[in-house]
């Protein structure tokens, strides 16, 4: 792979292209794709937060959609109660997801391996059924958002403005993820992932480190949820369904677990594949399934391994 300075240039070029994209798309009359790209970036944020849990923390969580959905519901419920300011609603959405992740993580982290996969799934299902039977807030039908959240100085109803805000948030979160991975905290997490017994013997409170990692990721997923409800203008319990957790997981594996941009690459690949295949055939899930099978059997490291990334795993 390329050296550091080439990588820096590449990153700057990608960022510049991403900033220019909505203006180019509008100019070419393809404004529809600005919305598609926004959706890709929001899912990229959610999948990247899962990457922190799985790729860096080594905990295979199968209930990540719970935090994604909780954040989305928090914004929608607040909007229904008259709180439409993004400055209030979005931090509250993150706080709700952090609280959920703290409680769920505190209990789930007592288990290991397959049991951890399953207990996180169980908690996500609990939240799914909770929102499903929440009649005051739409129950099965979910909630329609009357309008996007309001932010002073930026009109989020404008697709390009919302796109740029999401891009800034995604870039900021990836930068934080990078810093986190390079920090002492990240090194301890890697140590725990490779050999927890040794880290315990060295005197590290491994349970607390893992819980903090799980909780941070939950908060980031909640932020992604707050964004997705603004993008779709709608939230329903299906956002917390176990297949949604599965989709986030699959995006991450497709992109490359433990690679900084794994979540981004996977979300882009999967959603664009969906977009292309569904234009082409009604049986697009069949095609997606075959592509995924191919990736498992022939390219286990995901997209990251083709690009020479896949850094975190070794």
């Amino acid at each position: 792979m390329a050296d550091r300075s080439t990588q820096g240039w590449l990153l700057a070029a990608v960022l510049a292209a991403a900033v220019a994209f909505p203006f180019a798309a509008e100019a070419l009359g393809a404004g529809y794709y600005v919305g598609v790209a926004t959706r890709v970036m929001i899912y990229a944020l959610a999948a990247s937060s899962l990457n922190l849990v799985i790729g860096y923390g080594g905990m295979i969580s199968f209930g990540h959609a719970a935090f994604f959905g909780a954040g989305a519901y928090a914004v929608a419920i607040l909007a229904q109660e008259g709180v439409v300011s993004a400055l209030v609603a979005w931090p509250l959405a993150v706080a709700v997801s952090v609280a959920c992740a703290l409680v769920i993580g505190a209990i789930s982290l007592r288990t290991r391996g397959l049991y951890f996969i399953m207990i996180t799934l169980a908690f996500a299902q609990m939240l799914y059924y909770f929102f499903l039977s929440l009649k005051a807030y739409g129950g099965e039908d979910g909630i329609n958002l009357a309008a996007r959240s309001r932010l002073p100085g930026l009109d989020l109803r404008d697709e390009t403005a919302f796109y740029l805000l999401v891009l800034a948030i995604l870039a900021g979160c990836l930068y934080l993820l990078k810093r986190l991975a390079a920090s002492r905290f990240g090194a301890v997490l890697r140590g725990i992932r490779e050999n927890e017994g040794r880290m315990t013997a060295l005197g590290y409170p491994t349970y607390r480190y893992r819980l903090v990692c799980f909780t941070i990721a939950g908060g980031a997923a909640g932020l992604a949820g707050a964004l997705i409800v603004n993008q779709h203008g709608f939230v329903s319990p299906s956002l917390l369904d176990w297949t949604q957790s599965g989709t986030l997981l699959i995006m991450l594996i497709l992109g490359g677990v433990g690679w900084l941009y794994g979540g981004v690459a996977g979300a882009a690949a999967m959603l664009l594949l969906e977009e292309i295949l569904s234009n082409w055939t009604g049986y697009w899930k069949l095609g997606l399934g075959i592509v995924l099978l191919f990736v498992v059997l022939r390219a286990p490291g995901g997209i990251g391994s083709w690009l020479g990334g896949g850094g975190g795993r070794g």
Partner: protein
Amino acid sequence: MNALLLLEQGLNGLQFGLMLFLLAAGLTLVFGIMDMVNLAHGSLYMIGAYLAATLAQATGSFWIALPLAMAATALIGMALEAGLLRRLYERDHLSQVLATFALILIANDLVRMIFGPQALMLDAPRALAGTIEIIPGAPYPAFRTFIIGVGLAVAAVLYWLIVRTRVGALVRAGASNREMALALGINVKRLFTLVFGLGAALCALAGAMLGPLLAVQIGMGESILIQAFVVVVIGGIGSIRGALVGALLVGMVDTIGRAFLPTLLRGFLPNNIADALGPTLAAMAVYILMAAVLYWKPTGLFPARG
């Protein structure tokens, strides 16, 4: 009257639990012996139900369709194992999740392609259409009684198979220590394929039994798959006995919770709160049960690995 209702709901819980056991038995063995997360187990259940419904329509008899559907699903399961899943045993859980999730997508669309998007009807056999009186004055649907009978019979046969036969001993050896079983020269490859076929046949049986009660439709496997996973995890991965206990627990908690929790809450909460909270808690009850079991016993009630 209340005692009769309790009896009826108790039987419903038993019936649902036994059907969950049919699914969980195959799942827990694959889980335990091959250390493999198989999300596609629910798809075999769906395929079994579709085959049973189609064959019942074609032959006009539920009784001919049932064994045919079971045999066909077992063959599909074994082909799947030998052709694809076998390559995943040595891989990590993430790869297994990705591959079997892909299989769900493929199976759903293939079934939609072959059988069409609309739900199929599967009628209960005419001889079991009415009700019978289990105790005088308490009518209960004959077909549900039949399901309970079949479930108990399968549980007994499986118990005999696992505890009393040579094949069962091999399966138990594989579940408690796969490397040791391999080292002792057991032909694990053939054993795995056999176990997978058996699990698939049980899926088809559950699909055919539940078909007349629930709808035979695309995606029917996904919701019940998660409940089967809950059963497996509560019971302890790899343990047939655990799967039976877990299945009965889950079946009972789910059915009784839905039937009685709202009324029960009205006893000590204001009506409007109880009406809102009751159905929510009832739907969450199974998952609360699982979280509680794992909190106190992080490897389930009957861990298979010593």
